[in-house]
C-alpha cells in the first residue's frame, strides 16, 4: 500500500506493509536521526512530530501518517542547533544517543507550554530517557534556552 506524507515540508510517497511502523518508514525515507531504542514504547528516542504533536514513531503505524505532516530532527535544524548549544554548555548531552527524540520533545513543549515550571518540564519530558546525564544538566539547559528565547522575543 502507498503512503504519502509531508515530511519536513516536502511531500514524500512510499510503499509500506500493513505492519510497517512510522519509524521504519521514516528511516526508509532517509531520516536517520530517528532511532529505535527500547522496542517497548518507553524510551522516547523515536519521538517525531505528527501534525505538530510529539508521538512515538515506533508505535504509530505508517498508514496512520498518510496525508499528515511529519517532522523529524532533520526538519528543525536551526532550532535544534540553538538548543543544542545550551545543552553543550550545561553538559546536558554526553553520548548523544537520546538527543534526537529529546530535542523534538523539548521543541514541542516550548510550543505547548507557556513559562513552564520545573515540575511541568520534568513531567513533559518524563517519556525521554537518558542514561548519561541524570537530567539535571538537561533541565538547566532547557531553562536557560527558554529564558534566552523569551529575551529574544522582547
Amino acid at each position, binding site marked *: 500500500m502507498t503512503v504519502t506524507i509531508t515530511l519536513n515540508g516536502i511531500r514524500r510517497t512510499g510503499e509500506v506493509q500493513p*505492519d510497517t511502523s512510522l519509524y521504519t518508514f521514516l528511516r526508509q525515507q532517509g531520516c536517520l536521526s530517528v532511532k529505535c531504542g527500547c522496542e517497548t514504547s518507553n524510551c522516547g528516542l523515536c519521538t517525531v512530530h505528527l501534525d505538530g504533536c510529539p508521538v*512515538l514513531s515506533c*508505535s504509530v503505524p505508517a498508514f496512520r501518517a498518510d496525508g499528515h505532516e511529519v517532522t523529524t530532527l532533520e526538519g528543525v535544524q536551526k532550532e535544534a542547533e540553538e538548543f543544542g548549544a545550551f545543552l553543550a554548555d550545561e553538559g546536558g548531552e554526553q553520548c548523544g544517543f537520546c538527543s534526537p527524540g529529546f530535542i523534538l520533545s523539548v521543541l514541542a513543549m516550548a510550543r505547548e507550554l507557556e513559562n513552564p515550571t520545573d515540575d511541568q518540564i520534568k513531567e513533559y519530558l*518524563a517519556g525521554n530517557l537518558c542514561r548519561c546525564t541524570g537530567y539535571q544538566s538537561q533541565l538547566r539547559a532547557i531553562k536557560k534556552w527558554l529564558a534566552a528565547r523569551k529575551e529574544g522575543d522582547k
Partner: protein
Amino acid sequence: MYTASNYVLAQSLDQALELNRKRSSAIIGGGCWLRLGRKRIGTLIDLSALGLDKIQENEEEISLGAMVTLRQMETSKELEAAFGPFFADMVRHIVGVQFRNCATLGGSVAARFGFSDILTGLMALDCQVELAQKGRMPLEEYARLAPDRDILTAVVVKKDGRKAVYQSARNISTDLPVLTCALSHKGDLWRLVFGARPGKAEAVETGDPGSLERLAGEFSFGGNMRGSEEYRRHLAGVLTRRALEQLRREEE
C-alpha cells in the same frame, strides 16, 4: 511486534464489525500495546476515520470517543471543568507525553488490562461504555466480560456532581503501577476502586468514610514482579488514606 497481512481504514462501523467477525482480525487503537506482542493479525482494522476521536458534552454527560487519546483526556477543558484534575492525575504517570499522544481510551478500556490506570479511574465515576452491537452497558459490567468481537465506540461519563481523586504507587516514575486507587464521593456514597492488584480493577461502595481503610484491606491482592501481596495490601491502606485526605481537601 505484531505482523498483519491486510490493513483496512474502516469507512463505517458496520464495515468494521463485519471485518472484526474473523478471529484473525484485530482493531488497532494507538498501537502502543499491540506492538509489544507477537500477534499474527489477518486484517488490521483502523477506526480513525470514524470520528471517534471527539470529546462531546451535553447537560448530563460527557462522551469520550474510543479513539480519544490519553493526552486529549489529560488536557480536556470539559473534563477539567466537570471533574477537576482527576483525569489529568489518572494519566499523567503513563510513560510520557509522546506515548499519551498515541495511546487511546478505547485501546485501554477494551483490553481490560489489570494494570490499567484508566479502568481504575473510570470505575470510580458513573460510566457506561457504548458498543457497536450491544449498545450501552455499565463499565463495571463490561470490565467483567471476556473480550468478544463487538467494538467499543465510546465511554460516557455522567456529570452527576461526583468528586473523585486518583492515587497510584509506582516503583519508578512512568513504570506500570504497583497499585492504582480511585475514590469518589457523591451524597452519602463513597466508591473505592483498586486496580493493578495485579488483577483487574474492582470497586466497593460504602456510606461510611470511616470504613474505607477496613474495606481496602478486604480487597483481594496478589504478588508479581512489581510487588508482593503483602506490600500491595499495605499500600492499599496508604493510598486510601491519601485519597480520602485529598478528596476532603478538594471538597472544602
